[in-house]
């Protein structure tokens, strides 16, 4: 699976430009970045928000990409569920906002 950039070594993380605040998309757009870290597609995984207990798929999280890192928040309480920072040669993934991820796998 072509999960790393075809034809080059991975480079720095985000360089963002936005003209309005509150622009968000959803966790579907995390698929590529998380696929560099995990062996499976994590956007189909679901987890419980530590702030309010709501269960959502990673794909359904409120995703802010216009920032020094990727920040995914709970659609229910806006609490931070997941953060991903991509450096030149490492990534930091903080999952403190979710109690556990349930990841569908082939039996």
């Amino acid at each position, binding site marked *: *699976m*072509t*999960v*790393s*950039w*075809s*034809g*080059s070594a991975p*480079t*720095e*993380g*985000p*360089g*963002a*430009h936005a*003209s*309005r605040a509150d*622009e*968000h*998309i*959803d*966790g*579907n*757009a*995390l*698929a*590529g*970045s998380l*696929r560099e870290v995990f062996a499976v*597609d994590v*956007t*189909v995984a679901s987890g419980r928000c530590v702030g309010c207990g709501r269960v959502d*798929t*990673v*794909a*359904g999280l409120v*995703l802010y*990409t*216009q920032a020094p890192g*990727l920040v995914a928040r709970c659609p229910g309480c806006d609490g931070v569920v997941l953060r991903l920072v*991509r450096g030149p040669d490492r990534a930091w993934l903080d999952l403190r906002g979710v109690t556990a991820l349930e990841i569908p796998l082939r039996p």
Partner: protein
Amino acid sequence: MARLAAVRDETPTARTLVLDVPDWPGHLAGQHVDVRLTAADGYSTQRSFSIASAPSGDGQVELTVQRVAGGEVSPYLADVFAVDDPVELRGPVGGWFVWRPEDPSPVVLVAGGSGIVPLMAMIRTRAGVGSRVPFRLVYSVRAPEDVIYADELRRRTRDDRGLDVAYVYSRQTPEGWPRPPGRIGLATLAEHGWPPDFAPACFVCGPTAFVETAADILVAQGHEPRRIKTERFGPTGPVASGG
């Protein structure tokens, strides 16, 4: 390294890029790729683009890019990127917003503007495997010239059994249109979607505000929230995972 093999103008502001991708493993309808562009001084940025084509087995992937005024990446891909130019591409990625032909449920597709792209991949995939699963598309645009794949959708509603398409025009309607322009609403989805007791799989794609409005309408109609899959592009078009 992906390379541009051909281009196809879809509307005055949207263009399809046909890319040759070596070792392309195939994809599911609804998945996307991340495209990275690098300037000569090393500055780079990336954007996600939905795959427009059905899996073809020939290592070619199509993306349809909508030029966003003032955008950084879409004007390059829509106007400058030339046949034989290379581009860095990562994917396919995204296992959530996908339609699998094995799923027998009827399908509701709700597209806002360039949100039609991954839904078109689903329509094309359905035709490619000869599926009879009933598909209903509600496609909202500002004006008639903004409809991407207009001719193909006309042809498919005629030839692909079980595909119905309804249009919503939010700013300007075609000549002779029986209603004034307006945004998508409960009445449109009640008339042109599937009723909740059919338990359809619903896919909603487009700008964030459109998706949230349309998803709220589907929930208000009575569809199970878990049966509604959404993919939000940025406010005016696809936004990067990572800027």
